C-alpha cells in the first residue's frame, strides 16, 4: 500500500519528514503498511469496525435523531511517538498537574497567588467555574484533581503545545484501552518485534489513585464510580472503567447521605462509600449545594465531603483552572509554586478581558481562533481563517458585550497522521490527550487518545463533531536501530523513499 505524496501537506506529519521519508520511529509501521495491499488494509479496518459494533463500544451525541449510541470510530493506522520525546512530555505533564493542584488549593484557601498579584482576583472570582461552595475545603494530599486529560497539539514547527488541561471529568481513556485491544486483535503482526509502552496498567493505577485518596480513617476503603446514566455521551467509559477496576457503578439515586456519611443501596442493606470517582459535573452533584433541580446527584453530598467522610475525585471546584482565561496563566503558576520553568508550553493566548489584547484580537479575527472561556466539545469556536464575514461580525459583538468570556489564539497547524480514507492512506490532522493520575504520586499514561479529524483539512477532532481515533504508540527505539534508520534514510534519498 502506498502513501500518497505529501507535497501539498504543509503540516508536520507524525510519520514522515519534509522530504517524505519515514521518521526513525515511523519506519517500522510504514514498512509494515507498505507490505499490505489496499484490500488487506481495508479488511483489517472492517474487522475492527465489526468488533466495535459487536461489542457495543459506543458513545452518544446529544441531539442525535437516533437518540442513542454511535459505534466508536477507529482507524487502524497508529500514531507513533518516540519514547525519548515522550519522556519530556511526561515530565511536563507531571509538572503541570502538580502546579495546578497547588493553584486550586490556593484559590480556595490562602489565596497567596492572588494576594501577590500574579493573577488578578477579579479574573478568578468572576470565572463561571469558580465555586464558592468549595472555599475552605482540604482534600487529602491537597489533591483536588486526581485525574486530568491534557489536550496537546503539535504545531508545524514540530513542537507540542498544551491546548487545555481538563481537570473535571476528562473522558476518552476507555477508548485508549479499547483501541489498543483492537489493534492487538486486528493488527497483531504489526506489533511483532516492536517495543511499545504498555497501557494496560491504567485501571490498576486509577484504582490505586482513588483508594490512596480515601479519608485517612479507612483501612479498606470502598470506591464507586458515579455516573449520570445511560444517556450520557461517555456512558460506555463509565461502565468500562468500573468493570476494569471492579468497583460499583452507581447513579445518584443509588446513594444516600445519612449522618453525614455516604451509603449505597444494596440488596443487603446500606453499605458505606468512601471514595466517589464522579463523572458528573459540579453543578449536578448535590441539589442542596449546587443546582437545585438536579436529579443526578446526591442530596447533602457536600456536607459529607466537608466533614471529611468521603473523598470526591475530582474534587468540586477544579473547574476554575479549566477556564481558558486562567489557563493562560499556567506557566506563571509553575514558576510561582515550583520555581521552575515550564517544560511544556501553552499556546500563546490573548485575553479579551485586557483592553489592548482585545483590540488586537478584534483587528485580527481572520487569523485567529476565538474561543469562549468555558465551553467544551469544540462548540462556540470561531476558526478565523475559515470563517465568513457574518460569523466574524457575530463573534466581535459577543466579545464586545462580554470580553471576560473570550480568548483568542493563533491558528495552529495540527500535525497529521496517515488515515484510511476510501481505501487510500491520506494525511489527517490529529491531537493528543494523555491522561495523568495524581494523588500520593503521579502516573502519566504512555501515549493517550489520538483524535483525528476525518474530514480533509478539518482540524475539529471531537467525536461529537465527526472525529475519529487512533491507537497511540510510545515506541522504544534501540539507539542502534535509530542510527540504522537514519542511515537508510540518507541512502534512500538518492533513489525513492
Amino acid at each position, binding site marked *: 500500500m502506498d502513501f500518497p505524496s505529501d507535497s501539498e501537506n504543509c503540516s508536520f506529519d507524525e510519520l514522515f519528514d519534509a522530504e517524505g521519508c519515514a521518521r526513525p520511529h515511523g519506519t517500522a509501521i510504514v514498512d509494515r503498511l507498505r507490505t499490505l495491499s489496499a484490500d488487506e488494509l481495508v479488511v483489517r479496518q472492517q474487522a475492527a469496525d465489526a468488533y466495535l459494533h*459487536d461489542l457495543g463500544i459506543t458513545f452518544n451525541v446529544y441531539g442525535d435523531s437516533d437518540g442513542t449510541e454511535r459505534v466508536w470510530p477507529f482507524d487502524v493506522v497508529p500514531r507513533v511517538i518516540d519514547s525519548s520525546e515522550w519522556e519530556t512530555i511526561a515530565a511536563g505533564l507531571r509538572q503541570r498537574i502538580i502546579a495546578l493542584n497547588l493553584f486550586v488549593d490556593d484559590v480556595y484557601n490562602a489565596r497567596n497567588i492572588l494576594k501577590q498579584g500574579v493573577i488578578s482576583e477579579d479574573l478568578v472570582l468572576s470565572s463561571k467555574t469558580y465555586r464558592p461552595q468549595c472555599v475552605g475545603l482540604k482534600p487529602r494530599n491537597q489533591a483536588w484533581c486526581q485525574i486530568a486529560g491534557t489536550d496537546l497539539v503539535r504545531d508545524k514547527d514540530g513542537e507540542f503545545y498544551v491546548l487545555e488541561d481538563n481537570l473535571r471529568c476528562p473522558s476518552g481513556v476507555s477508548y485508549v484501552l479499547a483501541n489498543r485491544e483492537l489493534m492487538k486483535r486486528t493488527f497483531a503482526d504489526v506489533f511483532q518485534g516492536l517495543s511499545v509502552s504498555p497501557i494496560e496498567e491504567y485501571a490498576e493505577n486509577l484504582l490505586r489513585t482513588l483508594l490512596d485518596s480515601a479519608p485517612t480513617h479507612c483501612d479498606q476503603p470502598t470506591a464507586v464510580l458515579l455516573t449520570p446514566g445511560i444517556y450520557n455521551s461517555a456512558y460506555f467509559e463509565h461502565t468500562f472503567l468500573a468493570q476494569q477496576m471492579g468497583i460499583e457503578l452507581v447513579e445518584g439515586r*443509588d446513594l444516600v447521605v*445519612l449522618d453525614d456519611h455516604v451509603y449505597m443501596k444494596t440488596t443487603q*442493606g*446500606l*453499605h458505606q462509600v468512601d471514595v466517589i470517582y464522579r463523572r458528573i459535573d459540579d453543578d449536578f452533584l448535590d441539589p442542596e449545594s449546587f443546582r437545585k433541580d438536579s436529579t443526578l446527584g446526591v442530596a447533602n453530598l457536600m456536607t459529607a465531603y466537608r466533614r471529611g467522610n468521603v473523598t470526591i475525585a475530582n474534587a468540586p471546584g477544579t473547574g476554575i483552572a479549566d477556564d481558558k482565561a486562567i489557563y493562560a496563566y499556567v506557566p506563571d503558576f509553575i514558576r510561582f509554586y515550583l520555581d521552575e520553568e515550564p517544560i511544556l508550553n501553552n499556546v500563546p493566548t490573548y485575553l479579551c478581558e485586557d483592553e489592548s489584547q482585545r483590540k488586537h484580537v478584534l483587528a485580527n479575527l481572520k487569523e485567529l481562533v476565538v474561543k469562549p472561556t468555558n465551553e467544551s466539545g469544540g462548540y462556540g469556536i470561531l476558526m478565523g481563517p475559515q470563517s465568513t464575514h457574518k460569523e466574524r461580525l457575530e463573534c466581535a459583538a459577543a466579545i464586545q458585550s462580554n470580553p471576560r468570556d473570550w480568548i483568542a489564539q493563533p491558528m495552529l497547524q495540527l500535525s497529521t497522521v496517515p488515515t484510511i480514507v476510501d481505501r487510500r492512506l491520506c494525511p489527517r490532522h490529529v491531537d493528543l490527550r494523555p491522561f495523568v493520575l495524581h494523588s500520593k504520586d503521579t502516573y502519566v499514561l504512555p501515549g493517550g487518545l489520538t483524535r483525528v479529524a476525518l474530514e480533509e483539512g478539518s482540524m475539529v477532532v471531537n467525536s461529537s463533531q465527526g472525529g475519529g481515533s487512533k491507537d497511540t504508540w510510545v515506541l522504544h527505539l534501540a539507539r542502534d536501530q535509530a542510527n540504522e534508520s537514519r542511515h537508510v534514510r540518507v541512502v534512500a534519498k538518492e533513489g525513492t523513499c
Partner: protein
Amino acid sequence: MLSRVAESIYWMNRYIERAENVARFIDVNMYLTVGKNDRLSDQWQPLISTTGDDEEFCEAYDGVCSRENVLNFLLFDEGYANSVVSCVKRARENARRVRQVLPLVVWEQLNLFYHMVCQAADRRDLARIHEFCEEVRLASHLLGGAEDATSSKGEAWNFARLARMSERADKTSRIVDVQYFLLLPEQERIGSALDVLRWTALLQSTSALMMYRRQHGRIVPDRVAEFLILDPLFSRSMYHCVLAARNALENAMNSLADPGNAAQEATLRTAHGRGRATMQQLEQLADSMRRTKVKQIISGGLHEYVDDFQQQLNDVGESLSDEFFAWRAERDAVPMVAREQYQS
C-alpha cells in the same frame, strides 16, 4: 449488589426467557396448521390467547387472525411489549445499564442476539419463521450457558436464575391453560390421529415430549397435565420451576455467608430480614403443589388452578421487588451491612 443492578439483572433474564418461550411455542404450533382446511381463526387464535394479550392484538390488527398478522404480532411487532423483538430489546436495555457487572461474553452474546433480532424484524421474512425461532432459542441457550460458565454463583447469578424460573413457570402455565382448555372439548376424539397430533404439540411447546414418553409412555391427558404442572424433575414443569426459584432465592439471600458457617448464616438472615416475606410465599406455593394430586386439579377446574397459580407467582414477583429492589426510607435508612461482608 446494588438494588438497581439486581433489578436489571432480574428483568434482563425474564425478558430473555420470555422471548425464548414465545419462539418455541410459535415454532411448534405453526406446523399444526399445515395441510388443514379449518377456519383460519381456529388455527391461529390459540397462539394469541396463550399470551393473554387478545385485546391488544385485536386492536392492532382489526381482529384479523391471519397467519401473517399473528406471526408479525408475536415475533416482530415493536409496538407490542411481549413480542420477541421487544423482549430482546428490553433485555439488552437492562443489560446495558449494568454491563459492568456482566461477564464480557454475556454482554457480547446478548448484543449479537439483539442485532440478529433487529435485522430479522426489519426483514420480516415470513418464509423463514422456523429458522428464526430456532435462532432465538439457540441464542437464549447460548446466553444461559455463557452465564453459567462465567458467572460467580453469587447474588447476581441467583437473581438471574430466579428470574428465569419465574418466567418459565408462568409461560408453562399459560401453555397448559390454553392448550388443555382447547383440547378438552375434543375428548370424544381421544386416541384419534388428530388428537395425538395436538397433544404431541402441547408437549413439544414445552420441549417435554421426549421426557414425557420416557416417564409415562402413551399420551393420557391427565398424565400430561400432571407432568407439566407437578413433575418435580422436568425442567419446565411449573412445580420444578417453583422449587428452583425458591432455591435461587435462598442462595441469593445466603450468598454473603461463609458456606461453612451456619451460625453466621443465621445471623445474617435474621439481622436484615430481607427476602423473608418473598421466601415465605414461595415456600407456601411449593408446599401446596407438593401435596396436590392432578385429580384434584382437574376436578376443581384446571383453568381456575392455573389462574390462581399465576396470581401467586405475580405476588411473589411483587414481594421480591419490594424487598430487594425498592427503596423505602422508613424501612431501609439504617446502615446494617458489616463492611467485610459486602460483595458486589
